[in-house]
Structure formats: structure tokens, C-alpha cells
């Protein structure tokens, strides 16, 4: 249910950005949601569709781009991708724990189409 808070915040950011730059209508908002954030895209979309009423995003489409969990192993120098919805701490190739997370925790607004 915390998707409602996230939808509220993203609408807030989008509407503020528009009023700052003189746009009056939002057509689309594109967001990137990492798979390890625990955010359910369907729930986010549902909350967005309720909350967009009475805003300049009333007719806006929310496009959700899911980002997979990706890491880079500093030992075997391999990049890996996981289908799981949590962060990996162990390299699936060599078992090392020296890992840099590349993607999976995103919760960002990427772009909007406005007029």
C-alpha cells in the first residue's frame, strides 16, 4: 500500500516541475522502478490513476520501466543480472562477496511529456 505514497510523491514532483516551467498539461510520466525496491507496478499504477484526478496530470499515462537487479563482481570482473526481487551479495559466477550494485534500487522519475 505504500505505492500510494510513492504515487503521491511522483505526482507532486511532476506537477511542481510543470508549474516551475509554465506547462499546463502532463501527457505521460515515465518512471524507473528497481526490482529490489518492493514496489508493485500494478499497485503503483492503480494509486496513480486515483491520485491524478484534480491535477494537471488528470489524463496522464504512467509508464513504468522495471529495472532488474544487476551487479558487477570486482573479483571476476563479470557483470551479472538476477531475476530475483532482492539484492545479491554473492557473485553467481565466482562466489565472491565483493560486489557493486549497478541496478535494482531505482525509484526515479525519468521523463515527462508535457504541453
Amino acid at each position, binding site marked *: *500500500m*505504500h505505492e500510494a*505514497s*510513492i504515487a503521491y*510523491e*511522483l505526482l*507532486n*514532483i511532476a506537477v511542481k*516541475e510543470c508549474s516551475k*516551467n509554465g*506547462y499546463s498539461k502532463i501527457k505521460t510520466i515515465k*518512471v524507473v522502478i528497481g526490482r*529490489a*525496491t*518492493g*514496489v508493485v507496478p500494478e499497485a503503483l499504477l492503480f494509486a496513480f490513476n486515483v491520485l491524478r484526478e484534480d491535477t494537471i496530470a488528470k489524463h496522464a499515462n504512467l509508464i513504468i520501466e522495471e529495472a532488474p537487479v544487476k551487479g558487477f563482481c570486482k573479483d571476476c570482473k563479470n557483470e551479472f543480472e538476477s531475476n*530475483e*526481487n*532482492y*539484492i545479491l*551479495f*554473492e557473485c553467481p559466477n565466482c562466489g565472491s*562477496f565483493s560486489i557493486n550494485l549497478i541496478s535494482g534500487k531505482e*525509484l*526515479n*522519475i*525519468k*521523463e*515527462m*511529456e*508535457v*504541453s
Partner: protein
Amino acid sequence: MKVMLTTKILDANERIAEENKKMFKEAGVYVVNLMSSPGAGKTSLLEKTIEAIKDKVRVGVIEGDITGTNDAERIDRFGIPVVQINTEGACHLDANMIANAAKELPLKDLDLLFIENVGNLVCPAEFKVGEDVKVMILSLTEGDDKPLKYPLMFQESSVLIINKIDLKDYLDVSIDKIKKDAQFLNPKIKIFEVSCKTGQGIDEWTNWLLTSIS
């Protein structure tokens, strides 16, 4: 036309959380964000913990619930500062709620502040409130499949308290599996096994807590 953005959606919450953290630090208060499912034993753990350490450190509590003052009344019996937040339906506490609740507390007269989050194993994990440490409770009755079903909470928490271990002989649940899966998700997680009913393991937890504060 297209507008490119690179804004974090929870930026506003994170900014307020940082302000809270600064405010707590300046007041010299160590802040614990306590999270779990409903009924795992958050308030019971607080009662046991306060009982054990109240002569050593000055403790305050923020209680987060959807509605009601039951938990705040349980804490109030100890004669320590307590504030109840009613989220009126929201499934988690956010940084702004904590900023407002903190105004009601004598922060300068506290060493330790517990924030008891809304009972929920999902949403609270996503929202920083300005805490020093996130502590989660999993009770044995919830089952040993929970770490892999709710990975975010286990990955965000620094401490896992396994509660209700007095029931282990009555349940088909493996404490080893809980620990193994929690450590798989979060190799650095610190684990305590306790029973708030019998008091078993409370000392280890409170000793760790007192060391962290000092």
C-alpha cells in the same frame, strides 16, 4: 514536448529524514526504527527493553499505529515520554510524521528514542525516518519462509530479533533456516533470539543496544 528528469521519487521524504537525523544527533539521541508484522512483539520487546535499561539511559518512544492509543498506554506505565501517532490508514510512518511527533518530545533529556513503526513487513522498509538503526522482529509463529518472501525488510534492517523462541518446540519452524536465509539476504545482519514472554535473550539484545548508544 519531453522533459528529462532524474529525480528520486522519495526525495522529499529522504530530505526530511536527513533533517530529523541531524536534529536527533544534535540533541544526542540514538534512534531505533523498530519494524515487524502486526503481532510479532514490537510493544512487548519495548516493554522488556525499557524495564531492563531505564535506570541506565533515558528512553522515549514514538508509537505508530493506524488508530488507537493502546500501545502508548502500555509504554506510559513506565513513566517515560511517549507520543502516539495515528496514521489514519497509512501503512507506514514517514519522515514528516516523525518530525512532527519529535516536537512533542523533550529530545535534549533523552539518550534513546524508539520509533515503533506500523505493524507491516513490507512498506515501512521503504521509508527512512531519520533513524540510526533499523531493527526488525520476526516471531517464530510467522514461519521460517518469511525472509525470502519479504526480502526488502531483511535487507534494510541491521538487526533481526527472532521473538517467541519459547514456542519453538510447538511449531514446525526452523530457526536455522530463518537465520540462514536472513544472512543470505543480508550477510551483515546482527541476529538475536529472544522470548519477550520468558525474558530469554533480552540481556544480549539490551547489552548490544547499550554499547551502540555509548
